[in-house]
């Protein structure tokens, strides 16, 4: 059989509901396609029904499609994948609750990836409202999924610091001037994570997750451009186009919106079997989207086929 999927399994199925609903949608489309060859028009209610199923089925039976990572995501994933164990990675949570549904899955995926690779992770936030979301990730992902990791040894939470890009201006030369201690008041010098880190230049990778100001742009301008540290980012879909110009020179890779998150999660699940049963909100949210888009596109194709066949028939007459 022709490998139309380019080596990726079509869809990850785990229960009967998923299989039945996909069969229903696929079979239905096929039936309509065959009808369209006789130049029959489809009633719009049929289109409505398909859209309803295409959206409802993945919600009821979380169908996740394997996302093929686009180069802009893949490059970042490969970079995180290829660092040596013990590398120092900074993840910045520069977002607020309004943006969180879109970008927090990315932050969680980055966190999982870094921890599973055994890197030392530094968490911080330039947004006052980001601190609570950072704590959420620490509780659920770090402490919940990686109980063996120790605070201070494997990761550290610097928390929120006021001053926007001013903070970056300082940590680019000296972390301790801005953060004498971590969020719990432990001096940085006494932590293993900060052993050998003076400034941002001593990090191996910086990942900023956000979508507003200060955010990725500020990280690039104030840190990335000044010290030679690779940078990656995850952003809300609306701001992604403004950041494309930074790729691939100033940003190694960029995750834009739910789709970017889904692609990264997909890569993560593909590489690490331990994440097979972790919640992947990016992929989950992409299920209805993908299916609905496919259905709409299928109907456009079907419509054109019946249109052309009908026209040819009329000409013959």
């Amino acid at each position, binding site marked *: 059989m022709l490998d139309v999927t380019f080596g990726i399994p079509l869809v990850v199925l785990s229960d009967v509901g998923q299989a039945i609903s996909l069969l229903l949608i696929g079979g239905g489309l096929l039936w309509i396609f065959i009808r369209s060859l006789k130049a029959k028009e489809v009633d719009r209610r049929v289109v409505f029904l398909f859209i309803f199923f295409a*959206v409802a089925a993945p*919600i*009821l039976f979380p169908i996740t499609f394997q996302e093929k990572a686009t180069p802009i995501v893949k490059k970042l994933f490969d970079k995180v994948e290829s660092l040596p164990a013990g590398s120092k990675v900074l993840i910045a949570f520069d977002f607020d609750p309004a943006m969180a549904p879109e970008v927090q899955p990315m932050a969680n995926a980055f966190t999982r990836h870094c921890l599973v690779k055994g890197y030392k992770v530094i968490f911080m936030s330039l947004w006052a409202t980001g601190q609570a979301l950072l704590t959420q990730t620490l509780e659920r992902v770090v402490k919940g999924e990686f109980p063996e990791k120790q605070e201070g040894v494997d990761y550290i939470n610097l928390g929120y610091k006021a001053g926007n890009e001013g903070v970056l201006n300082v940590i680019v030369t000296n972390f301790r001037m801005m953060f004498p201690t971590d969020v719990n008041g432990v001096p940085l010098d006494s932590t293993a994570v900060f052993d050998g880190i003076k400034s941002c230049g001593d990090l191996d990778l910086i990942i900023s997750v956000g979508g507003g100001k200060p955010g990725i742009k500020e990280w690039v301008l104030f840190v990335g451009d000044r010290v030679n540290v690779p940078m990656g980012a995850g952003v809300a879909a609306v701001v992604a186009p403004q950041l494309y*110009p930074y*790729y691939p020179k100033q940003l190694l890779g960029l995750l834009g919106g739910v789709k970017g998150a889904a692609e990264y999660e997909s890569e993560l699940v593909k590489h690490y079997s331990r994440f097979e049963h972790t919640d992947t909100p990016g992929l989950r*949210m992409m299920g209805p*989207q993908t299916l*609905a888009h496919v259905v709409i596109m299928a109907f456009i194709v079907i419509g054109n086929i019946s249109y052309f066949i009908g026209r040819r028939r009329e000409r013959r007459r």
Partner: protein
Amino acid sequence: MRRTTIIAMAVVLGLFILSWILRSASYVTVQEHYLIGGLKVTFSAFLTLAILSFLYKDNPFYKFAEHLFVGVSAAFWMSMGFWTTIVGNLVPRISQSLSEFFQVPYQPGSYNFVYFIPVILGIMLLMRLSRNRGWLARWPLAFIVGTTAGLNFVRYLRSDFMEQVSATFVPLFVDWKGVGYFISHFSLSASGQFVAIVANWVIFLGVICGIIYFFFSKEHKGVFGAASRVGIWVLMITFGASFGYTVMGRISLLVGRITFLFRDWLGWIS
């Protein structure tokens, strides 16, 4: 019709009882009585389904939801308008006793008398209901139209005209450092010079051709006609792309509604 109505009602009721049984445990945390809470959610779900049923055809459920919504929303905006604009903005400026009656802080000022003018204009507007004083209603309309026309005149001249025109002032040869440099650094990547140059050319020509398409007083013939045709092509490509791009957002809306039905109402998913 009556029979299908009864069947549909029975289905909704059945689903409600089902969801009630499924979810009765989860209502314990809610402070409200679970029956009341369940009824509220069920009514919302019923209205949701009633609107969705419109997709099949116009039916009594849709008519019910539609008419209810019209009445409730009209009253909603009237109440909000009364409390925020009349009580919040007007009353504190024109009358101390009314302010005390509505319990809003009185804000006296030496020029507050001007607030009687909109009241007078508003009453003139109500004159429409009178048969022979109806022409008075034109005064407030003239005031509103004149004020906003003047406001829009300068506002759009600036934002939709001057700023858009000056935004087209882009160099056609971005970072031009000679032909040799251009050829040696040629790349198709998104951040390359070639792509940037093409983008600026397309934007410039697209804007010019688009504007030519909108010429009314010149026949679209010859070169002019060709340019106007290119203009409408660019417009069509744009409309298609925007349409395709919007699909994502619209699907998200439906995801929200279906999640409400499955999670908040039926409790099938967590």
